[in-house]
């Protein structure tokens, strides 16, 4: 299983901070498409993904146990 984290407006849209999904074997892009469809999240295409707290490109393959976070454009500072 994989833990999927949502932040900022993505969390507001998803209605929860995190969900558990079976994502291993999917690419980041495939997971994005799946989550967008199943959780009604609209702006996921402008979000980055992080796998285990490091930015990961769309083509990266997700492994069992990986923690995936969707990172909207940041606005700290």
């Amino acid at each position: 299983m994989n833990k999927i984290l949502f932040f900022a407006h993505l969390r507001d849209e998803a209605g929860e901070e995190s969900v558990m999904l079976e994502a291993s074997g999917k690419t980041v892009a495939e997971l994005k498409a799946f989550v967008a469809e199943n959780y009604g999240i609209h702006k996921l295409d402008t979000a980055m993904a992080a796998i285990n707290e490091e930015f990961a490109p769309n083509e990266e393959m997700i492994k069992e146990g990986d923690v995936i976070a969707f990172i909207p454009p940041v606005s700290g500072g």
Partner: protein
Amino acid sequence: MNYEISKVAIDIQAVIDKVVQREAGAITTFIGTVRELTEGKKTLFLIYEAYESMAVKKLQQIGDEIKERWNGAEVAITHRVGRLDITDVAVVIAVSTPHRADAYEANRYAIERIKEIVPIWKKEHWEDGQKWIGNQLETVSYPSGKPEGDDLNE
């Protein structure tokens, strides 16, 4: 720890103390504060949220980048999360270097990088609404679907 996310008001002097060194002649700090007016619109307060564990790693990465580029630099960064009112301190960056030009440049580099790669978001609250702010660089968000090449895992 030189890189922190704080749920309470930041002690500026404590951040500065982390970069004091006998080899340094200059310490610069950047203190980001909550401004009342942005483009004529009145902010009431802000909420900052962080992906805390990753944010600390990315602050550390920025510190490492600085030490690689500016010889002899020491760096400490604390970013606040939670509710902040006008004039409250959102971030403190302290950089010490042997010579002053480097202390200014390295500090400026740190704040620009924070706005690029550190997973922290702010929600602005105005009299007539509220909104998660997309990105402060006011560029198209990650047009290539990811941060620029050297933003990745350095």
